[in-house]
């Protein structure tokens, strides 16, 4: 685990966010979060709690009606996605996360669209993390399996060399062994110094690897603590984790 402590500077601060897709209907009702440099943050909660909406609002994909998001000292509330990429935030959506008609290599190239000169260097770095992708560099991404697509999506986001990586349910739809691989890989990415904010349905596995967790309920931040503390919290166990997988 990374050594993020109270002395480590805050990199992302979301303060009292209200956001939603349709006019007049808020999905987030005062959501807040503070993320320190190098942390791995897990966001869990029941279906419809607003987890994915929260992540999308951080990335400018859902309009924030009130509240603010800062990256370091800069206010990034409602900035366009491509502006956020320029500032070092990468986002991996839950579904439709590859360009199906582009080859694997072209998908990765899109990750360095704003900094094309860094492609070669980043491609070599990512090739070491995801050797399977290099083997399939000329294959169309649309012909890959769900797990492989997830790998391409993560690799594409990492090609941007982001300081903050937002992952929306990276294990969704994957087989158990692929899920494990995804969590291990996420941990490895975090160890390289990238701050990771991850939304997950597999709450237990997510809390096992994350530094801190946020539990969302009805669009607000219900609890926050370290991953290990949340795993042992009776209320969290009863409401969100269940006892079967303990």
């Amino acid at each position, binding site marked *: 685990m990374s050594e993020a402590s109270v002395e480590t500077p805050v990199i992302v601060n979301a303060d009292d966010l209200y956001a939603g897709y349709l006019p007049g209907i808020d999905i987030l009702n005062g959501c807040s979060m503070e993320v320190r440099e190098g942390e791995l943050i897990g966001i869990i909660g029941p279906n419809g709690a607003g987890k994915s909406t929260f992540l999308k609002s951080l990335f400018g994909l859902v309009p924030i009606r009130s509240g603010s998001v800062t990256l370091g000292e800069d206010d990034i509330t409602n900035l366009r996605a491509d502006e956020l990429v320029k500032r070092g935030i990468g986002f991996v959506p839950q579904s439709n996360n590859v360009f*199906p008609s582009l080859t694997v290599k072209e998908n990765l190239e*899109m990750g360095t*669209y704003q900094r094309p000169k860094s492609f070669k260097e980043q491609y070599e770095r990512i090739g070491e993390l995801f050797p399977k992708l290099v083997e399939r560099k000329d294959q169309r991404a649309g012909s890959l399996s769900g797990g492989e697509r997830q790998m391409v999506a993560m690799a594409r986001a990492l090609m941007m060399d982001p300081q903050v990586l937002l992952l929306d349910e990276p294990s969704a739809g994957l087989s158990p062994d692929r899920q494990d691989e995804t969590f291990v890989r996420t941990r490895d990415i975090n160890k390289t110094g990238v701050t990771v904010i991850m939304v997950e349905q597999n709450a237990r596995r997510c809390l096992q690897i994350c530094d801190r967790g946020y539990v969302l309920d009805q669009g607000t931040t219900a609890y926050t603590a370290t991953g290990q503390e949340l795993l042992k919290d009776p209320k969290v166990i009863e409401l969100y984790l269940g006892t079967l997988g303990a």
Partner: protein
Amino acid sequence: MTNIIDRRVLMRALIVLVVAAAASIAFGAWGSPAVASTVDTAVAHASAVSSETVATAPQVDTITQTAVEPDEEIGTNRYVQQFINGIVFGLLLALASVGLSLIYGTTGLSNFAHGEQVSLGAMLTFFFATQQPVSLPFVPVEFTIGWPLIPSALAAIALAAGTGWLQDKFLWSPLRRRKVSIVQQMIVSIGLSLAMLNFIQWWFGAERRRISTSIDTRIDMGVFTIGQTTLWSVAIAIICLAAVAYFLLRTRTGRATRAVSDNPALASASGIRVEKVVRLVWIMATGLAAVGGILLALYDNAAAFDVGARLLLLMFAAVTLGGLGQAFGALVGSLVIGVAVEMSTLWLGTDLKYAVALGILILVLLVRPQGILGRAERVG
């Protein structure tokens, strides 16, 4: 290129073309007595050019369509001739269709006003090639135009591409920003199409206009003949289409264009300025449509204000046949439509030639719903 366009898919497209051509020729051989009386449009095309009185003055004139008698040429094979005509027509149609497909791919819009962009290219070339004084609104400058064909065509293409920029800047982009649905946008495009059609007719009249007065010399290639101007048109079309292919496959912006076609939200999340890419696509598409209009006007000797409107359904057919949103699909679709349209005149009345093309569209979609180059995506 083969990693983008699956080899198997390319082979299928080629097979469709070859089988269509072979079947047409074979069928033609059996039915030769029946076709003996049909008009060989290519030869007619040649005789139309040679029989016309051409003005020697630089001023461009208007012509009226006249019935032309067939004029059999020794050595030409009508089936090969029609096949070649079909390829030529298909290539010219492709110039317009590729742009339509790119717009559909990147924005989801079926642009019904694309036909008028084709007409605009031909009509603006006529405008610049016609000797007349021109004064600009709000600018106290008056000058005379009546330029040669190439500068006229280049000016027309630039102006037509400029209308693409204008349209996207002041119409389509604001509609997208306000989340106006695709169906509503399509209805807007129908309205725009009618407005542009009426505007072009008001400006240039309903007559067919010639943009070049030079005599098109026929070149005898053994089993078929082809006009020198047509040959140039084909060369220009191939160069333009190759340039589009190079742009899409080999340049960073071209790959970004394909990425936006695939998934605009993800493209934006990758740092691509989607709106910038879409603006570029509009400029390219309208510019290509203008090139198509100019070359079609040269191929047909003249063009009227509704030349594009008449082609619109064929363009949609080509785009759908090739695979919706696939730029290369539009090319293959256009070639199939071009060959079908031209070869059908060997057996059927010319009034039915477009019906044949649309019939082929229905047949192909029944067998291959995603179109010739469209690909079914793996799920999960």
